């Protein structure tokens, strides 16, 4: 087996794919660097990311599976699943064998089906972040929210926040992966914070708690007791998301 490692970026992965064909590696296995290091692989060839090689792979793929197909691969990548490389490489091989077909429509193919499942879970997680994020207004006028998504979906949510909240400063921070997106009324930037986020309530604007309470009251009173259906409730808002939800916190 020939093990190729790449730098945890999608461009790096595509570069590796390119080199597999360029250098005709036999039995190739592509792994991301962060996993290659602690694995038992004895011999690993590190791949240096090259934009032009990555571009050639994406162009070739786009011809066959379209922008939509590339988007599916991106979603698969953001799932951070350890089988991502194997599955997508298998799809690429399958595509080369059937060059004139949009192979991603063959849901009966196991690798295609696996990718479509990741697309579904990642899309759902991104959507849930957009829905469940709760901003808290801080003294310096920034609307702040922290998230800990199962998959790396923050990049997918940028356009949602950017299009919607244009006249307020905001910051959404992924505390699991330690990076965030910050909008300063002009542009959105990636940032890393080293401050302690735990005591954020001390930094609240003085009206913040009142609106949180009002929202929690509203949530309580818009419910119809006679129709209580806890099972359905939890199915929609799985418990792991409750930590985000102002209305689910007990004051």
């Amino acid at each position, binding site marked *: 087996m020939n093990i190729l490692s790449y730098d945890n970026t999608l461009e790096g992965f595509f570069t590796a794919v390119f080199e597999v064909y360029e250098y005709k590696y036999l039995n190739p296995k592509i792994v991301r660097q962060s996993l290659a290091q602690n694995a038992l692989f004895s011999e690993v060839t590190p791949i240096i990311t090259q934009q032009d090689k990555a571009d050639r792979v994406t162009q070739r793929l786009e011809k066959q599976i379209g922008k939509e197909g590339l988007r599916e691969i991106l979603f698969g990548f953001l799932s951070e699943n350890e089988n991502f490389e194997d599955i997508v490489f298998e799809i690429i091989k399958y595509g080369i064998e059937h060059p004139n077909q949009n192979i991603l429509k063959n849901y009966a193919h196991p690798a295609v089906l696996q990718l479509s499942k990741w697309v579904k879970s990642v899309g759902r997680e991104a959507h849930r972040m957009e*829905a469940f994020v709760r901003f808290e207004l801080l003294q310096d006028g920034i609307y702040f929210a922290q998230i800990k998504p199962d998959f790396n979906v923050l990049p997918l949510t940028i356009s949602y926040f950017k299009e919607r909240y244009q006249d307020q400063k905001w910051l959404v921070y992924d505390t699991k992966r330690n990076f965030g997106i910050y909008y300063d009324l002009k542009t959105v930037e990636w940032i890393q914070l080293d401050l302690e986020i735990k005591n954020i309530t001390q930094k609240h604007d003085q009206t913040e708690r009142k609106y949180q309470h009002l929202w929690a009251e509203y949530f309580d009173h818009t419910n119809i007791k006679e129709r209580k259906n806890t099972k359905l409730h939890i199915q929609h808002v799985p418990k792991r998301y409750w930590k985000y939800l102002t209305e689910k916190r007990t004051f």
Partner: protein
Amino acid sequence: MNYDRIKEKLEILADAAKYDVSCSSSGGTRKNTNKGLGNSHASGICHTFTEDGRCVSLLKILLTNYCIYDCAYCVSRKSNDIQRAAFTVEEVVDLTINFYRRNYIEGLFLSSGIFKTPDFTMERLVRIAKKLRLEHNFNGYIHLKTIPGASDELMQEAGLYADRLSVNLEIPTQSGLKLLAPEKDHKQMIKPMGFVKDALVQYKEERQKFKSTPKFAPAGQSTQMIIGATQETDLQIIKVADHFYNNFNLKRVYYSGYVPVLSDTRLPALGTEVPMVRENRLYQADWLMRFYGFKADEIVDRQNPFLDLEVDPKISWALRNIDQFPINIQQAPLEMIFRIPGVGVKSAYKIVHARRFQSLSLEHLKKMGVATNRAKYFIDFKIQNNHLKHLSTIHLKQIILDESKTKYQKTFSNQLSLLNEHSFLR
């Protein structure tokens, strides 16, 4: 902000508004092009779910629960001895903006009891929408419930600022309305719907000539019917819904199982169970008409005026039309794939895509999300399907019921998807 006073009003006026089941924020088209606040997401977003599992997308409140009318089915009716409250225009605007900025909601759903006159009330609803749009650059979703009897001028203005307008029919038949809301008449209820429909048509025409024609209720209009307060059959209800879909360009009809909150000899007694299964079946029927190509009279007819509560209306149709089955997965047209019990819209499309590549098996269908425990009795493959031997038996319904152990759960998990179009379409 006088926190305590607002809190009290919010409690009363959210309580009074909650029986309106619609909370959809879909169909909005507003973009945030003015560097303002908000936009609307075409398919709507549920920001949370109540403990009864309903989508919370909008701040749904009444402007006031004072009312000069006395409709028997309504908690706000004049003769009901309850606490009354009224928001000011500023208070509603402030709550909407502050909830929106925190990503709690998609917008506002504002309705009201009728105080003084219909126009007096409607004018205030319109003023709130106008203030949000013009003074706060608010592009989020606004749904206004129009007040029966309000003038055409106010309706026209409401359409300029609102995304969706609705008039709740509440009681599906004229006789039911006479019994429970003698002060209202059917014609007066329907008139504003006709107005909105005409205004929508007019907007479309003018829009073709002048690009600058201001938007009119881009998310269209909807209505709600209360189920189980009077004696209507499902046939009557579905016919009414069908009529409104066809003649008033309605986007949605909502069905709300009657929650007995008042003691009145004309109504089901307090403590009567909310007809949730029936409500769910009606949503399924509605879905069949709107997305699966079924006609109203294929779903219920004079011989079968009520929907079967045990199985969903698609299975019910299949059982009554056994001669149309089995449907061949490999060759049948999409319209027929839609009609297979257990096959949803999404999996139907997956099937017609995937079958071009290879012959499909039951296992494939399962992986594509088909409820094969139901579908297997109704389909044919290239290879032989052993389940088909049951197709001609009279006990097929029982076989299906026995196999779906979780049928009760199923009922409710279907309902959730139906109420929240979002998750259903995903």
